[in-house]
């Protein structure tokens, strides 16, 4: 427990002092790029790996089974097909013997296949989530980056704008925006597009609402990074603003951005399902997981499966994204180093700022 710990402590302090994020940690990280280190840490995180696997499975299942973007899927029904009730709509799948059956998740009262509806709903939820993540991440990065890099009046204007949006509670603002996205006036330019791709409109609108938190975080990160020596060095050697932002600052701020985009996405899933549940998000005849729960909650006593499966998929998607986000945070943050339980008890401190001498006396 003596030598490695001591070395670790010193390394951790160096990392703190330089916040380089690369060479901290107990793993052998010499000669690896930052991306390689992050990847290595991420793939060492069990929860995140399980989350990733579950999410990938749901993603594939949802997008291949009922088809997407006009490509037909391998499942024989889609979410609007009505077929005769098999066994009064009870799910036909069983774990033992492992069988899929005609309607694995059952059917609703009029005979629509719940598996197809759930898959369609999962597709919608994932689409909205990805759109929100991409748009909120991009807008947040641009606004936060510009405000943090240029300061002055740019910052004043952008941050006041952020303040204005951030005091409106997210759900309230999202509800208003969802209502606007669902407007189907004849002749309006989005009407024809929206009638086919309502969920895309919803995702885009919500993305333009949820960037504010990200903008604040990115701005904070830019504020600290722009004062650092390597930025001064780049500026002195004649690099343009764009080059400094994209080549020098952004790669160092990308960790914060990715982690928080992931967490925004997991919140976005719940937001989308909640809006659809309230009738302000995805609307019939299209379907979404929240809408399925809303439509079927009255039937819980007679057809409980209609309620279980969509809810289960919401939880699975959200939980796996949360675990991925947790893994990413651990991977990107050199200070949140995971200890073994025993050594955590024995070495009480790893982020302390005491002099190495004091630690050496403790470590030996």
């Amino acid at each position, binding site marked *: 427990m003596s030598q490695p710990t001591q070395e670790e402590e010193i390394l951790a302090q160096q990392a703190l002092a330089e916040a380089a994020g690369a060479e901290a940690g107990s793993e052998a990280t010499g000669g690896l790029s930052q991306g390689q280190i992050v990847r290595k840490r991420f793939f060492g995180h069990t929860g995140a790996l399980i989350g990733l696997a579950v999410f990938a499975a749901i993603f594939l299942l949802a997008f291949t089974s009922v088809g997407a973007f006009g490509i037909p899927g391998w499942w024989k029904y889609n979410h609007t097909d009505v077929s005769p009730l098999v066994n009064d709509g009870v799910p036909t799948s069983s774990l033992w013997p492992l069988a899929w059956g005609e309607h694995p998740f059952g059917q609703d009262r009029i005979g629509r296949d719940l598996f197809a509806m759930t898959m369609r709903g999962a597709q919608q939820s994932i689409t909205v989530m990805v759109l929100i993540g991409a748009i909120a991440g991009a807008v947040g990065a641009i606004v936060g980056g510009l405000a943090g890099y240029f300061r002055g009046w740019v910052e004043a204007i952008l941050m*006041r704008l952020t*303040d*204005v949006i951030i*005091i409106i509670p997210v759900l309230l603002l999202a509800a208003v925006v969802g209502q606007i996205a669902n407007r189907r006036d004849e002749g309006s330019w989005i009407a024809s597009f929206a009638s086919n791709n309502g969920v895309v409109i919803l995702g885009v609108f919500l993305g333009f609402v949820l960037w504010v938190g990200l903008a604040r975080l990115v701005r904070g990160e830019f504020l600290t990074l722009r004062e650092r020596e390597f930025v001064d060095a780049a500026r002195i050697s004649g690099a343009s603003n764009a080059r400094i932002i994209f080549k020098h600052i952004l790669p160092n701020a990308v960790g914060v951005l990715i982690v928080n985009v992931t967490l925004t996405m997991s919140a976005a899933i719940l937001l989308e399902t909640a809006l659809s549940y*309230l009738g302000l998000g995805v609307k019939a005849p299209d379907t979404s997981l929240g809408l399925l729960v809303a439509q079927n909650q009255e039937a819980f006593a007679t057809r409980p499966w209609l309620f279980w499966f969509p809810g289960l998929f919401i939880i699975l998607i959200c939980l796996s994204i949360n675990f991925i986000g947790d893994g990413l945070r651990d991977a990107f943050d050199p200070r949140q180093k995971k200890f073994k339980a025993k050594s*955590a008890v024995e070495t*009480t*401190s790893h982020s302390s700022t005491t002099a190495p001498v004091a630690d050496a006396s403790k470590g030996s």
Partner: protein
Amino acid sequence: MLTYIVRRLITAAFILLGASFLVYLLTASSGDPLAEFRASSAPNRQALMDARIDLLDLNTPPPLRYFKWLGGAAQCIVPFGNACNLGKNIAGQPITEALGFALVQTLTLVTGATILAILIGISLGIVTALRQYSALDYGVTFMAFLFFSLPIFWVAVLLKEFGAIGFNDFLRNPEIPPTVALGIGAVLGVIGAVVVGGAAKRRLIVGGSVFVAVSLILFYFSLTQWFRNPGLGPVVIAILGVGIAFGVTVLVSGLKNRKALQSSLIVVGIGVIAYFAVQPLLNDATGLMIFLLAIATILVGLAVGYFMGGYDRGQSMRAAAITAFLVGALVVMDRFMQAWPSYFNNSRVRGRPIATIGAGTPNIQGDFWIMSTDTLTHLVLPTIALILVSLASYTRFTRSSMLEIMNMDYIRTARAKGLSERSVIMGHAFRNALIPIATIVAFDIGALIGGAVITESVFSVRGMGFLFIDGLQRSDVNPVMGVFLCVAITAMVFNLVADLAYSALDPRVRIKA
């Protein structure tokens, strides 16, 4: 300091103006308030349309209408002016009136849930931080992630099905089959063993005794139909009171402080005697009386602690006061249980006490206890749902804050100078870990008022969220703006409070004046 506050308030006013303008335009463009008439075939269609256009002033374009609205809203700032005018909703009701009603509904719904969630979340966070990487820690962390991912409307439907309908069915014939009793005992035993931690032998003993105790209590409940005629009685209150006295003393002062333990136990004795004394008084109780009694109870506790004294008078007083309050709560709980059978057999309740929707049984009549029980049975389900969903963030936040503090140098110093683990944790670590938590608690209280939109809609409570969603769905701008104004103002005030509290609690943080 004063300059800082004034500057913050002025900025806040401008932000509020901008945000309200934005929300007004967005809401106005989100739909057509005349849509229902356009589709109708009623003969007086045009007259109805004209009436609504007149009521909501629809001929004025939205940006101009905003400034008209603002003129009315600005009068709310004038103190004692009574000229507050936030417009009318689509049915012609003034918004100020609707807001007053909705605010009461929302606050009754969310206050209890938030306080409980904060208390439970912080205690769980501290326990998991102290037992980092134990089975308990992993279990609670996983549960936190799970609760964090739960859609509240889904939880609410499950709670309605199993919590309300299932429990009401169970109450019709409250007998617990032996296997179920043993099963519940076993589950709680395992949880007890995980929570207590330590060596395998200690875990076995604790888990086993929890299992035996819980199973026996459930058998007893089943035999005596306790769930139909619940009650504690003075004996159980005395036993529980002694347990509370020991528990509180351990946390507040440690058992070594004999005077503190003695004063807590004396308070329990007084409580049991008071149990008989206050029964006739409680029979015609009012809310105010309960409140005064609670204050009197705390004062009695403080007095007992003061006269017992000891080497640390403050600790004795604190321990005795907390014990007194909890024992008093037990007495009140016992009185609620005495009122339970008459509530249960009330002609309006008809033996199905746990309600799934609404904020009260319509037309129910009875004394204070019946009415309060009615409110409580309606609050049970939404409160559980809200706690489950908001618990996770408090737990995670407290855990990381506590872990950071436990790694600080002054904690090591405190241990090195020989302080007991209790005073290191309660005196040094816990208080400092609470500083960052105080700010998120302030934020959450600020967000309380507009918070529970989905919960309100699932449980049909006509609070702020309902007002908002209903207004939005009818493209009715004024109620939406009323709710937004309340929510935004409280949020900004509490943001300011959070910042001020942080700098007051943590002297290292200085406000830039």
